């Protein structure tokens, strides 16, 4: 890693630091890593939201908000992400860099201090997380889970993953389910909170003007009461290399535009994954505006309003998402698969390869200018135990050939086809 420093600073706690004076905003995240599971996903998702309601020092939203205002509008927001089948829950803290604030020189320390207090010293009653906070955040979480229905593109992808990976942890949404959330009690949640605080691997990330030692000192001070027990052994992502018979699933909702979503597995290429080749293959197929899906399925044939593919590299899954007229289902499906076959048979021009590589490299380099993108990248690297940085990855991409991309395409297999169409009465119109 050229531009980042990563060290273990406490048992099972790693801190990654990117020191740069490019930004006026400082960025800090703390993430508790747990195995994604139907049993615990909602609990892990709920904990940061409950903690964010108040800590011992600032026990309600108003006093906590006032403290954040005093820190020049610092934001400390709950975050729940997945990297493959690892669920990462915690907080993202963003704050003004004290360099631009006359008379301020310890904003970083105060901000990380408050983040630590929210995570470690919640307001409790009788030793339990406050019931009213737990109950109202349960409701909010249920609302948020249900609200995936509001954006039909997201919804179709959530459903696709559920159907495709019904037997795997990957099929579990990062927020879990409404049913699991409703069952959570303050006692259960308090126990689970204590358990993950003690046993979870913790990844922290900082990006801003401060150097590693200043951040490390601030963190060690703020997290000095963090309990550290036996680490959870063996969390990770199970990769399935083969696809069975293709699953087809159609649903109806009151919509005017249909959504066709396809789930693929990357197959045996995941045995020794070449992430650079996988990323370039995706950019050629459907991950960029010079891709086959964009140029042929959308632009040339006007079959879709949008058609794109994305890769979840930890799990080795590729999802294709498209918006179509209801009666274009078969045509669009055939055409998407035809584009994949074309890549398999080596039908990639030098121009397509170069366009895809440029697109990937530009995206990677642009990530270096965004603290949030850097956080996501390094968290992914930490989860996989990989130690190359963005620049090194860009150099790997540079070396990818047409043959490398074709090899990935040959390994890819279709697992599930999901179609969201309108209600019958709508279709009659």
């Amino acid at each position, binding site marked *: 890693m050229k531009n980042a420093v990563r060290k273990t600073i406490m048992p099972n706690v790693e801190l990654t630091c990117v020191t740069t004076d490019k930004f006026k905003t400082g960025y800090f995240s703390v993430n508790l890593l747990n195995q994604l599971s139907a049993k615990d996903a909602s609990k892990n998702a709920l904990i940061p939201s409950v903690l964010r309601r108040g800590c011992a020092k600032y026990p309600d939203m108003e006093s906590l908000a*006032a403290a954040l205002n005093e820190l020049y509008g610092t934001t400390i927001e709950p975050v729940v992400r997945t990297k493959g089948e690892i669920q990462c829950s915690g907080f993202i803290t963003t704050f003004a860099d004290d360099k631009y604030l006359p008379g301020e020189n310890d904003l970083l320390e105060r901000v990380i201090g408050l983040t630590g207090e929210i995570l470690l010293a919640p307001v409790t009653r009788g030793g339990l997380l406050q019931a009213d906070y737990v109950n109202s955040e349960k409701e909010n979480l249920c609302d948020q889970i249900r609200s995936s229905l509001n954006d039909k593109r997201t919804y179709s992808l959530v459903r696709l993953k559920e159907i495709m990976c019904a037997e795997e942890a990957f099929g579990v949404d990062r927020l879990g389910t409404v049913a699991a959330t409703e069952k959570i009690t303050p006692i259960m949640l308090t126990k689970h909170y204590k358990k993950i605080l003690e046993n979870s691997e913790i990844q922290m990330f900082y990006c801003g003007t401060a150097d590693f030692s200043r951040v490390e000192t601030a963190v060690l001070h703020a997290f000095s009461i963090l309990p550290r027990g036996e680490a959870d052994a063996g969390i990770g992502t199970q990769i399935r290399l083969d696809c069975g018979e293709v699953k087809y699933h159609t649903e109806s909702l009151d919509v005017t535009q249909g959504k066709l979503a396809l789930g693929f597995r990357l197959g045996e290429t995941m045995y020794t994954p070449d992430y650079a080749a996988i990323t370039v293959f995706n950019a050629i197929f459907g991950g960029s505006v010079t891709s086959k899906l964009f140029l042929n399925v959308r632009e040339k044939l*006007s079959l879709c309003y949008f058609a794109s593919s994305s890769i979840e590299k930890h799990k080795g899954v590729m999802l294709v998402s498209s918006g179509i007229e209801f009666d274009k289902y078969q045509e669009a499906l055939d055409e998407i698969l035809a584009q994949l076959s074309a890549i398999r048979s080596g039908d990639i021009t030098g121009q397509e390869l170069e366009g895809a590589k440029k697109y990937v490299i530009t995206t990677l380099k642009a990530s270096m200018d965004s603290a949030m993108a850097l956080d996501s990248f390094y968290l992914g690297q930490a989860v996989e135990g990989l130690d190359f940085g963005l620049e090194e990855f860009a150099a790997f991409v540079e070396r990818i050939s047409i043959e490398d991309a074709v090899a990935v395409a040959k390994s890819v297999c279709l697992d599930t086809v999901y179609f969201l169409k309108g209600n019958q009465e709508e279709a009659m119109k």
Partner: protein
Amino acid sequence: MKRIEYGKIGETVYSETLENGLCCIVVPKKGFSKSYAFFAVNYGGCDRRFALDGYWIDTPAGVAHFLEHKMFDTEGGNALALLSSNGASPNAFTSSGITAYHFECTENFEDNLNVLLSFVSVPYFTKESVDKEQGIIAQEIKMGEDSPSRVVYQNLMKALYANNPIKDSIAGTVESIAEITPETLYHCHKVFYHPVNMVLCATGDLNPEKVCEIARAVLPESPGEIAQRDYGAEESMLPVKSIIEAQMSVSAPLFMLGSKLEPIADGDRHYFRMLMGELACMLLMGPSSPLYARLYSEGLINNRFYSGLSDFPGGVFATAGGESKNPEKVKDEIINEAERISRFGVDISLFNSLKKASIGGFLRSLDSMDNSCYALAEGHFRGYSPFNGLELLESISVEDIQAFIESAFKSERMALSIVKSKT
């Protein structure tokens, strides 16, 4: 070039108005790998009626947006593909007041800028490509109709405004875009896409002189004219109707509340009012207000609740929205709280701490290249510099806030738009 240093925020802005009237603004950022260019026209979804050679002309809803889609077509192919294959990520959008074309890249900035400036200034439309685009945009419109957040917004505009074109969707309707022909597009391009009616903003590790040089070489020499526009008969401060409802497949009812405010002429005063109004909304109903805490703990709002000021050509309104089991109750509570503050005064310590928070927030907003360029372009068209924001924020007084809250949140000025779930 004119060089202004904004010492407090650590930025330097270079600007120049070229011989052809185009304003170029460059904000150099040392050490960034990414560069960003933003080329905008003072022409948006609301600019539907304008004067040309002494005649008033009406155009269908959706032309500015349609034009934005079609500008990427060039005689030699497609500018989107050209920029992409050159390593840039290009995109464009049409708002109520402006159309903007932009790209970011990490290399070949000058080549890419050349392409951007050329394709936006040279129109190329054919009957065939316009017909095809009608299909694509019709799909986009349908997708919008499936989006509850767009419906809740568009309905609010319909309920608030009787005459201003903001009441219609920027993309138009399937019917209105069917009226668009290549001639409509050539015509509107000719009327609005003049150097004098446009602005070029760029940021990244750049040489400002070089940016101007490229603009000089590529763009037409004649400045053109700024067309006079008409946004309909003057609006009263009362809404068309106070409540509007729709039913869709949503998980929880969505709502958006709007309160009509008097428009202010362009310039620093306008920008000051926008910043001040935002601060007043934070004080009345932002996350650190007593009202927010109460509504949140009663389960009437969740963390997706928002509030603020929104402006467009010819109008401005204060707004609040999100998801709620009982939007009417949220509306009543906001009105009551505004009355309470009007009567008992603003909480001074909350005011001071919110000002601090706004200063931090303002500083941080400058980290986003797209935000900065958008703000600079909009500021140029409306006669102010957004980089003065810090001084303006500091100059806001308690009395300003008090007066704003007293007048802005009156029940008779408000409309409430709700999207309920279909059962």
